[in-house]
């Protein structure tokens, strides 16, 4: 536990000093909320006032941007630099290290959600979450699922230079198709079909129902099941395929 906190502190320092990561993971979803919220704030979307609809969507977007995209890029860059290999050569356990990196992202997400809630309430006139406990749990579950998927996606990326491109090529279309920025009801049928299998769609569903309708999880079983299934699938891939060493080091004698 002492080691975990020691590493967590370092990871927090590293996160906030990395301006690019701090911007795209932390600030960008907040800026999007302010921009989109002030533009569309008054018209209802899917029967919900636009400010609340967008707030929920961008909370979901931020969870994925930090836990999935941010984590995956961080890990790939560190792996290809040889940093993960170096950490493996110390007595710090691999689980403690990855746990601290993920917990550090979770702190960022928590801060981000709080800022978004405050902006939503006081700038855009959105509501507070109807079921705060379930809402917090949905965010946490989303963070866990997308962290697992983030670790899984690191196994697909070969170079540090390519990490940002590959990860965003997966995440940005997913964010659109899942309805973070606008309703999926206006999409062509095939896109809506795709959206029904994506984890972010169902995470948004969970966040939306706990935020807007105050439903507990009993009434959102499908969404819960899909999110958990994606998380477990990501974890399974990560456990089997995760690499600590950079690619160049693999075959060299």
């Amino acid at each position, binding site marked *: 536990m002492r080691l975990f906190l*020691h590493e967590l502190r370092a990871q927090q*320092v*590293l996160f906030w000093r990395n301006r690019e990561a701090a911007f795209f993971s932390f600030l960008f979803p907040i800026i999007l909320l302010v921009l989109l919220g002030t533009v569309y704030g008054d018209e209802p979307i899917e029967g919900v006032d636009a400010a609340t609809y967008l707030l929920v969507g961008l909370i979901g977007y931020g969870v994925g941007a930090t836990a999935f995209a941010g984590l995956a890029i961080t890990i790939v860059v560190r792996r290809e630099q040889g*940093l993960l290999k*170096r950490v*493996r*050569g*110390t*007595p710090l356990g691999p689980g403690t290290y990855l746990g601290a990196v993920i917990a550090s992202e979770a702190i960022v997400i928590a801060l981000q959600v709080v800022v978004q809630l405050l902006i939503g309430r006081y700038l855009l006139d959105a509501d507070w979450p109807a079921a705060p406990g379930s809402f917090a749990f949905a965010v946490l579950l989303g963070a866990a699922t997308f962290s697992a998927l983030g670790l899984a996606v690191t196994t697909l990326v070969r170079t540090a230079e390519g990490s940002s491109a590959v990860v965003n090529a997966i995440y940005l279309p997913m964010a659109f198709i899942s309805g973070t920025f606008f309703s999926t009801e206006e999409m062509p049928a095939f896109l809506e079909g795709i959206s029904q299998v994506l984890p972010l769609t169902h995470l948004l569903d969970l966040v939306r129902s706990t935020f807007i309708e105050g439903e507990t999880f009993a009434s959102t079983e499908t969404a819960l099941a899909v999110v958990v299934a994606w998380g477990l699938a990501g974890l399974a891939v990560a456990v089997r395929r995760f690499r600590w060493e950079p690619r160049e080091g693999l075959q060299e*004698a």
Partner: protein
Amino acid sequence: MNGVAIEVEGLRKSYGAREVLHGIGFEVRAGEVFALLGPNGAGKTTTVEILEGYRRRDAGDVRVLGQDPGRAGGDFRARIGIVLQSSAVYQLLNVREIVALFAGYYPSPRRPDEVIELVGLSEQREARVRTLSGGQLRRLDLALALIGDPELVFLDEPTTGFDPAARRLAWDTIRDLRSLGKSILLTTHYMEEAQKLADRVAILRGGEIVGTGSPRELLSGHATVEIRYRRNGQEVVLETAEPTRVLHELTGEALASGAELEGLEVHRRTLEDVYLDLTRGEDRE
């Protein structure tokens, strides 16, 4: 530990169908500096990474500090220090922060400031890692390898890319470590480095050990002195174990005939000459 830091016997490793280590064996005694030499691709890094616990071996017995590095955990890693071939540290931390971070990983670390001073980075204490020069980064690598106060230190080409002054400084640091009783396994391309630092060396070629012993032992058994001069524009090279007699004869003849031995050079054979003899020719695949 019985005075032995590393024992290797019959070590084999393949990557796919290509076997890169054909059953090698050697021993590193506690408290000595042992150098593993060999051309690129000879298997040095593979060997070292098996000993460090990074890679699995296919066959053979390996004991490092009495443990099997293939199964060892955090307690084993707390007793070793590693300088990998390429540096990798968090770019956004400063020198003191990263050394303190790594100190926290070990059960009984040395004081960060003391280690920073030992590797000669005191002036860069507050400098972000990304502003350091290549040589300074290498010294930071060394600091991170030493922060846990290890019994055994692995140095994989620790001075590659150093200027001569920085190399001398690194050698002093390695000698200091030895005088503290640490065991050191070093790989290097620089024969001068091995000759100056190593108590014993093993020369690896194409996945096999082709020579082992102290630098002095490797030099004996070979003609130890080389005499070169030019006669009628032709280069003449003599190798001899009796340089006094040969030189006397040569210079006697030259004086008698009133000729000058042009470009006369007397050269003691070095580890590099032995190394080149042993590793000459095609590496076997």
